[in-house]
């Protein structure tokens, strides 16, 4: 055992220099070559395309519920089990709220992603069905023809 300690220590230090130093710097160096359109950079408008934001106003396509309120410095999911009664009551409440804001929508058209929290709490996407059920509300508030929206969504 004794004969192994010094080589073990030295090998660890060499590995540290190589994997934490050289490997990281090599990846860092390559990442500088990434064209801006493909890399993780801020858009001109001042936000990150990949990172979801909370959209709760009726004039926006609402984003998915988030267990961390879209805090991108502490992301996380709800970790609620599928049979948890409190959780199921919460989902039911979200459905009811959605129907209040979108009175023309039938309940069976609401897709589950709009009333369940994502894994990261930062999901930047909603499903196409989730967008479709919100079109009428936004069109009314913004006074835009529904068909323009439908075109944008390519339906």
């Amino acid at each position: 055992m004794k004969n192994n300690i010094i080589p073990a220590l030295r090998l660890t230090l060499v590995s540290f220099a190589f994997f934490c130093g050289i490997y990281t710097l090599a990846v860092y160096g390559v990442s500088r070559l990434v064209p801006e359109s493909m890399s993780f950079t801020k858009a001109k408008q001042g936000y990150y395309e990949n990172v979801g934001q909370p959209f709760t106003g009726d004039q926006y396509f609402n984003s998915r519920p988030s267990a961390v309120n879209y805090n991108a410095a502490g992301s996380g999911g709800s970790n609620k089990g599928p049979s948890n009664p409190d959780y199921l009551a919460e989902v039911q409440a979200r459905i009811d709220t959605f129907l209040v804001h979108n009175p023309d929508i039938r309940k069976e058209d609401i897709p589950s992603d709009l009333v369940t929290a994502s894994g990261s709490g930062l999901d930047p996407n909603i499903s196409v069905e989730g967008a479709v059920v919100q079109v009428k509300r936004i069109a009314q508030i913004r006074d835009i023809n529904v068909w323009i929206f439908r075109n944008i969504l390519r339906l």
Partner: protein
Amino acid sequence: MNSEILGVLLMYGMVVALAIPLGRYIGKVFNYESTWLDKLFNPLDQLFFKLSGIDPGKEMTWQQHLTALLTINVVWFILAMLVLTNMSWLPLNPDGNPSMSGDLAFNTAVSFVTNTNLQHYSGETGLSYFGQLILMLWQFISAATGIAICAVVFIAMKERTTATLGNFYSLFVRSSTRILFPLAFVVATLLAFNGTPMTLEGKDTITTLEGQEQQISRGPVAAFVAIKQLGTNGGGFYGPNSANPMENPSYFTNMIETISIMLIPIAMVFAMGFMLRRRKLALTIFAVMTIGFMLLVIPSIYLEMQGNTAISAMGIQQNRGSMEGKEVRFGAAASAYWAINTTATSNGSVNSMHDSMTPLTGMFTMLGMMINSFYGGVGVGFLNFYIFIILAVFISGLMVGRTPEFLGKKIEAKEMKIAMVIALLHPFLILVGTAISSYLYAGNPTEYAGWLANPGNHGFSEMLYEFTSSSANNGSGFEGLGDNTPFWNIACGIVMLFARYLPIIGPVAIAGILAGKKYIPESNGTLKTDTSTFGLMVFAVIAIVAALSFFPALTLGPIAEYFLMLN
């Protein structure tokens, strides 16, 4: 066909297609045959040995291998403890994150040194960039430890009588520089080119369209994610791992990351075939592992795509399946596929929240970890499977009345005893741990109320999952468990230690003892180990020894929850 299913088939097809040539390459690396990367790596390895004062040509016995392995792991543990408890004042801490408490540092140090990467903290707030980088070192070297020690077993399985089995340091350095490093570099580059951050700047603050302030954690994510996927390390740069849209921005990156999970575990099986020139044995093992894997993955994908029955009852549309804890860009099928990938191997990073999966999917993820050898972790997955082979050889030998032999070596009482202890260790650690925690909780539910995020059977599943994950050196969790408490930090730390080192010591000891025995050439009386009959036998042993010992516990958790939800 449904495009979600097609995506899964594509991922599986690609990982097998890539694992075959990689397996051949790994076989060459451990046979010390020349490869086209030698020009780069021969001088690099020599530099490693020169700076460390190691003679890579010195042959070691199996005992010397284990001593070298354990010594270097002790060194790593001490170093990890020192860094984690002093991060706050060490460099590279732009966000001013604090040092860890003693019990959390113990848990984290054990977790990364043992290739588990169980995280009782959240990466964004619990670690400085220096902490992340040092943990990344273990993602390389703990994975390389597993691969190297598996190579020792391969060497021992060759047809000859020998006391020495190569040099541990040499195999270790070759695993890290020639296998893990080039793969990680390629994957990290692919990720950086597809929108994963790679920066040393701290948090960014932006204003959202609705006028709120939003803070964005960044960091050297691409480099970290690549190796945590490849080395079946798991964990993540961010709390929710690869569910986070910075760690895993698109379906394409999700494919890369998913393929990275199983790539080396599958390649190791083929590497064995190439090294020993026993293709048929490798294919038999691969077939058994694949059937087991499919039995876990197919129902999981089906169940997640069906959705949560309690939510269907509310009358909304669930075409996309159970979406709680999942990301829209991956969908239910790719999330369920990842869940089984990450648990059947000992990876443990997640791209959706396992706690929120439907009850039986939760059970299949646990079964993946309980069996822990349907591909399994890098290197150690094969070692677990090796134990099952030894058991199957012995049992089938008894059934047909022949001396149990494996690859021309007689298996006797001593080897059998070791194999049995190792096979029973895993259920022992999981069930005893879960029993103790359930007992504590049941005795004082108010004091331990912070433990469980979900009531009833699901709460029990959270505790069962945590110990299963620790003992499988997996690292994923039913994260609703409030696990950053002294009890969970220390209990899981101890379980991880036993579950990492004993299942390495056992198979190496068996292989080492067998290598020292006289080689008996195959005859008509030899039990063939590369046939489908033998494959079936191994599968039966796994089903009986591994799966059935957990059946009672699973009945109390996910199975009960499933039936209660039917009502």
